[in-house]
């Protein structure tokens, strides 16, 4: 990850994280963050919604 300027290291890509990959997001055009690896583009709200969906106790309804 040394290619990313430390001052810009804010968030990790929620899509890559879903595939157990940790990739930094960079600020892109129109206020959207962009993943340098995959096609993710999103606002801070999109990023956090992506993180939330990853949390196991929220994403799996076991009925217990």
């Amino acid at each position, binding site marked *: 990850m040394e290619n990313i300027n430390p001052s810009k290291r804010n968030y990790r890509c929620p899509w890559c994280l879903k595939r157990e990959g940790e990739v930094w997001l960079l600020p892109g055009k129109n206020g959207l963050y962009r993943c340098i690896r995959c*096609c993710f583009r999103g606002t801070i709200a999109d990023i956090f919604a992506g993180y939330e969906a990853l949390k196991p106790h929220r994403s799996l309804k076991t009925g217990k």
Partner: protein
Amino acid sequence: MKDKNLFVSIVHVPEIHHENGWENFLWLQNCARQYGAKATIGVKKELLSESFVVEQLLDYRKQGDEIALLLNIEQNEEGKSTIDNGFAAYKKAFGEYPASVLSSRQDAPLWKYIKEKYPEVTAGIGFAFEEGDHVYHGHQIFNREWMDFCEGTPWWPFWPSAQNKQCPGAPGNNIEIMNFPWLVRDMIMSFLGRDDFYSSEIGDLLRSKVIDEKDDSYLKRFFEAYAKQLKYNPYSFYLVLQESGWLSPGPKVFEEPHELYKVLYEKYFSEIFSQYPNLSYVTLSEYSDWHKKAFNMENPPTVCVWEDIIYDSGKQYVWYQDDKARLLFDADQGASILDLRPYIANIAKYRGSDSKDLWDGSYPFLIQSFHRCNSGHKCELRIGKELYRLAEQECRLENVLRTEESVEFIFEPILWKAPNAELSVQTHYKIDRRKDFRLEINRIIKGTLPQNETLRVKEHFTGCWGTDSHPVSLKGIMLSLKGGETDENIEYAYKARTNEMSGASSAEVIFPEYNFKLSLVPEEKCSCFIKEGDINHNFYELGCERELHGKLVNEAVKTIIFLQPGKL
């Protein structure tokens, strides 16, 4: 042949052991025929003993279809007798030998054998673009691992090297059987993930859920993306291979209703291909003949400019390939190089039980930014303590210029608002086809620097070696700095050594085992460096740094990457 050169090859494979397999094959054939398309039919030897099959195929042949022999055999000595048996059965059934084969598991030795013994063969389906690691890790539904490793190939048909079927051959050293892809692929998603999830086959798209009953628009965008390649190439090629088993109601690997399969397949013809009046349907051998007539036995330079067609994110990959190298530029990372395969080294390998490479048919990389996330060729700018990495900036391809001798890629300028200066940096790549492999990198810089300030422009090549995500030893490669009174050399031994030379003429890496070298050559002598990695950092680094002052009016900072085979 139509002058527009937008080619579509339809390949149908009858699979009669599936429920309604034969009926579904007939349906596929009728579907294509109804819309005026011809097909190549891949038939297994076992089916040739069935008289109803042979009778039907003879009828199709009369109507203009081509009957190819499907050979699913492994690479070894016994493979030759299996080939002979297959060809004998084919001749018995049809009175002549086939012009094309479907044989993705056979590599150069058996293809050479086929060509020598059966010179009628001019075409074969023999690889799957970027099939490898991602499929291996993800494909767990057929109760076995999917061990087909052939990453690093071109994406369109090519004349293969006599030493390696996955590598395009130079004129005079290739096998005269045009190597076709099993399917054509999404040129972003097949690099990011699984090539088999994003292909021209309906079943693959249903498996990945990129299309479904409600939304199949990706299929249309996928074909359009290939048709658009006519803007950058003298032709465009699309291939759909359909095995009839996928249409069966039985066990399947997607959750949509199986009837949907036929609806979508028909849409290909009725709603997609029909929109292109100049499109030409070709059989495999017809395309091979056209290619030979158009380019002789050469593998012409091929360009693919691919936008993200799934999410419409604006991500853009630019691919280049000829018989000397394959390159990938990422516009999203400031036009950095994300993948580099040195075809010019013509590394001999083949898969099979009698090969040292066994399953690994992938062509090695010098850069592969996902298997080795730190690798790439990137540019950095610095004014004082301010650092600006082009790889962190977005840009888009502005233009592609092609001549007989060169191919140029011009990217949009990137604007750097530094504290005391505003600079525009435009990347311009030029591949000179007259030389071994010569990639000229121009950073065209405009703007005015503050007095007494220096702009440092660093070209930084971080290289590696391998065919998959696991590191391989770099021991024995040689890093070298040239241009001083004596050369500075490091023989790679994982000691994390660095050498710098001011006034150097080049930084090089030499692969003695494969007898080729890569050189990074600045236009004028400047400060260059070489870096060895340690045991946890399996890379080598080459770089050069230039200094600029004052007013910059289209100041072109030129660096050349050479790939040279032979005596080193």
